[in-house]
């Protein structure tokens, strides 16, 4: 039988124990949801933890699957960067998470650990304005280089116009939220 789609917790347990032993102060929170394990890290320790996760035989996360950003405007540290790691050897996935503020959006680059992070980090910079310190060439990648603003932040408007009917008003697309009637958020 091939292994399960989502890893049982016991596969990831030695990694978590090892992490806590070595980088106790770096690990802010460990959570599990729908069979996926998320480790929230202190930004300053990201690179050393990443290097250990890649090199230690109990972890062997040699493949950085994905690196993506999310904006949570209600939080003070609203910009969130997720690292989706995969260990081919153990067939286990793990998500690392760091959070930074808009006023100080600095995250150390992991291009030295996983070279594939290069374009991913440029994309997150492009869309969220997260600065990856030490990145070899941190410039916009998908938007034009003279673009203003960071389009995937939640306060960046989608654009579009509102529509007036005789007895109804539909707000522009980015303000629509259907809650038993089209209302503005």
């Amino acid at each position, binding site marked *: 039988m091939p292994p399960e*789609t989502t890893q049982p917790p016991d596969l990831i347990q030695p990694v978590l124990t090892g992490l806590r032993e070595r980088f106790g102060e770096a690990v802010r929170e460990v959570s599990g949801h*729908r069979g996926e394990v998320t480790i929230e890290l202190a930004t300053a320790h990201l690179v050393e933890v990443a290097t250990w996760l890649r090199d230690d035989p109990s972890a062997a996360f040699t493949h950085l*699957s994905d690196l993506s950003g999310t904006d949570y405007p209600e939080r003070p540290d609203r910009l969130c960067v997720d690292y989706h790691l995969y260990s081919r050897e153990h067939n286990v996935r793990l998500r690392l998470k760091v959070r930074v503020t808009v006023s100080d959006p600095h995250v150390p680059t992991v291009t030295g650990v996983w070279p594939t992070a290069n*374009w991913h980090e440029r994309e997150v910079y492009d869309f969220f304005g997260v600065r990856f310190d030490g990145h070899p060439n941190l410039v916009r*990648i998908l938007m034009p280089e003279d673009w203003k603003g960071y389009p995937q932040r939640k306060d960046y408007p989608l654009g579009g116009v509102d529509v007036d009917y005789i007895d109804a008003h539909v707000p522009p697309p980015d303000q629509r939220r259907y809650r038993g009637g089209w209302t503005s958020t």
Partner: protein
Amino acid sequence: MSEVAPERDRATQSQLVQEAVVPPGEAHDLPAPSAAERVTVNERRAQQVLAMGGGDWAEVSARAHAEGDDDVMVINMGPQHPSTHGVLRLVVELRGEEVISCQPVIGYLHTGIEKSIEYRTWVQGVTFVTRMDYLAPIFNETAYCLAVEKLLGIEAPPRAQALRVLMMELNRVSSHLVWLATTGLELGALSVMLYGFREREEILDILEEVTGLRMNHAWVRPAGVSQDLPDGTEERVRSFVDDMRGKIDEYETLLTNNPIWLERTRGIGVLSSEQLVGLGVTGPMLRAGGIAHDLRKAEPYCGYEQYDFEVPTFTESDVYARYQVRIAEMRESLKIIEQVLDAMPSGPVMHPDPKIGWPARLALGPDGLGNSPAHVQHIIGESMEALIHHFKMVTEGIKVPAGEVYVTVESPRGELGYHVVSDGGNLPYRVHVRDPSFVNLQTVPVMMNGLLVADVIAALSSTDPVLGGVDR
């Protein structure tokens, strides 16, 4: 070749660049080349930044000039070039025939799909993701729907899962056929182009029969698929599979031992396994480099574990090995398609929970895809409650519990990953797509070093980039 912009525009553009990118002092702020700190061409190339606007063109040629190397020629290829597989731009530096650097520039097809999804309901999201990697729409839909289903904590009914596998494998064959056809065309094998597109047309006809559309199907939906197979499709797929085996033999007769094909593809674009792993390469490129990793085997989804198939692996890691992997994968896909048809479970194709499953059954009418006449009869003529329910499901959509998941499927190009975040509402909070073409394109600068200019196209083509997925 050079794009001469008026002096005034150039000044404005570089000014804008200064303002838009990170403040001065950060990594991209390259020092002006001077005799004192003269770096080698290679070191400079490693730092070189190419943005998409075209305003950097003068900079690139000036830099080449400042290096005092009069033999170096900078060629701009694309974004509108027949061999760049969409709107990809390559800036190639040549010394004579030899490529000394090749930088891909992307972003020309960026349409903000990830942003737009955040303002549509979960079901409408399917119509966006299917437009990303337009050669593998079924894979995009399936991966997105698997992510939504994981957040919902449900699984689609067995028949829907089997239908997804059937359609994905048909789609994989059609995607590999486009790769074979275009690569053949670019390397001068014109017959292969004609044959590849001929067979792909067969598959598109089947996809159209099932979904109503040749591409951008939006056929896979959260909690199932939008409609069952129409009568007669099964026989049609079976006879296609029988034909296709012979057709693949035909391609192999044309190419596999063809001295010109071997000359153009063997030893070209070689990547070491360290490079493959470090650059996050997945899919046929990885398997052509001796790493037998396939998500259908490693982390099976949609019931792939019940089908018997091989993971073709080669070790040369060149263009020829990638060709062999794709050809072998087409054969394996045909095997899977037959097994799916043999073991097709019966039952519904949409989750029975009325708060999750799409209320209507779609049907193909003379004017295309629409609600089935029986369903329209039910909501208009028989049941007021059914009408209200239908209206609520279509306008307000389903609510997905808060959380985040990362779900992957093995697309024809590699690991297609969906990072989906929900805040518990009826609209996705964030959908990020890890597109395999995006990641695999990063190998281009590494692969091209030292190649002859004629081999650039072969090496680029072997990554099978689809710019709709790269730029999203």
